[in-house]
């Protein structure tokens, strides 16, 4: 579980994340949604430790970021897995090498054990046939699955995904969403996903926070989001013509 309290983050006197507080639940897929530029990525990077908040507190399973020194921050990062928007796979490495990479760098296991663990992670995302392929030889959906395998290979306590569906067709998006949700349940991890994809919201939004101009505007579940009377949320949810038509039948 990750609890954030009054997080504020500014760049060049412009406040990107403004006084956001919430709790991201363990074993559930937590979604941060909002329009582009609403501060989702900056908030996620604060949670990852890539940005230091100007003020506020982030509590990782009872341990505050304010009480952490550099070495405990490094250890915390080893408990985090991240799926980047563009997958961020290492171009010069094959699929198996990409997945083995965190273990090779950070664990004391021997080469055989590392390969075995990496193979299990790749099998989990059903990419057994792509072991020796380079990222450039894979489709966008396959690259995302490799990124998920790399993120889970260290058995993380926290999984972060920055717009995992970006650039994917709706069908592949759902497969990726489902995979992330299954992994969250299977490993009982705290998963936080940045998204503006309404399919993801409907499919896997067990806990949703909605950001507007860096501020938390609404919080709830995928069942509640369609019933809310919050104007900003309904404007966002029913922004497409298709969903506007669907709304008429709800």
């Amino acid at each position, binding site marked *: 579980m990750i609890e954030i309290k009054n997080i504020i983050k500014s760049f060049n006197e412009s406040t990107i994340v403004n006084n956001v507080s919430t709790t991201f639940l363990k074993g559930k897929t937590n979604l941060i949604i909002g329009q582009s530029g609403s501060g989702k990525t900056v908030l996620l990077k604060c949670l990852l430790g*890539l940005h230091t908040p100007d003020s506020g507190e982030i509590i990782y399973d009872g341990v505050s970021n304010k009480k952490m020194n550099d070495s405990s921050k490094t*250890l915390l990062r*080893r408990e985090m897995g*991240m799926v*980047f*928007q563009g997958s*961020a796979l290492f171009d010069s490495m094959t699929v198996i090498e990409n997945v083995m*990479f965190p273990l*090779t760098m*950070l664990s004391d296991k021997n080469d055989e054990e590392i390969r075995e663990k990496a193979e299990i992670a790749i099998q989990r995302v059903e990419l057994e046939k792509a072991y020796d392929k380079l990222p450039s030889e894979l489709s966008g959906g396959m690259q995302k699955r490799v990124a998920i395998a790399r993120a889970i290979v260290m058995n993380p306590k926290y999984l972060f995904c920055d717009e995992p569906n970006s650039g994917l067709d709706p069908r592949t998006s759902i497969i990726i969403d489902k995979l992330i949700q299954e992994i969250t349940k299977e490993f009982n991890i705290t998963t936080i996903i940045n998204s503006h994809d309404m399919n993801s919201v409907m499919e896997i939004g067990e806990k949703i926070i909605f950001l507007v101009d860096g501020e938390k505007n609404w919080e709830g579940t995928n069942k509640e989001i369609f019933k809310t009377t919050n104007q900003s949320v309904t404007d966002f949810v029913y922004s497409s013509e298709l969903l506007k038509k669907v709304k008429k039948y709800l």
Partner: protein
Amino acid sequence: MFYLSDIGKYFIMIKMSFFKPSKWKVLRKLIFKEINDLIIESIPIVAILSFFIGAVISIQTALNLSSPFISKSLIGFATRQSVILEFAPTFMSIIMAGKVGSYITSSIGTMRVTEQIDALEVMGINPLNYLVFPKIVALLFYPFVITISMFVAIFGGFLAMTFAGVPSEAYISGIQMEFEPYHIVYAYIKTFLFAIILATVPSYHGFYMKGGALEVGKASTLSFVWTSIIIIVVNFIITQLLLS
């Protein structure tokens, strides 16, 4: 102020590349890969350029020594001095700023654009140690490249003079004439400093670049410009300190 903060950031980057080292097993592989990419693969272009420039230096020297009262051995002497003191260490380094420097900037810059550096940070790996340190170590072998450049350039001059009908004994005695070992020391001190500049300035431009694919190209160009300027300025300072 802008340049001061850049200079500060550059030195912090160098310092940080020695901190939180990755596993030796991993670093060793990376160092060998960088030695191959930055050193071994540079040898052919260095050899070709050195050969022809050595030949041109000797031809131009011969052209200016047309008087029968001046010994032909001076051609070898002038070629040796030009190559050892300036051409091999300095101008070859500027050429390498284009080849090696733009490779370093574009490879690190692409990793920045595609979030691969962020991925390293999230994993708790020091990206500067992983990316920059192996390049610094690999370029410690750069004097080896410059040694090849010196030999090949002098040999290029020798062949050019042989074809031009200058007695080979005269050229060989020229390259042995008034040999000053300190000039070799001076050349290698310069080469060592240029190696550090070649590894770190392009790394800095790649690592701290912002933007997308277009900016990778711009960062490579900027890195070449700054590496060349820094090499020329450092060359002047070192020459003032060691030879004046």
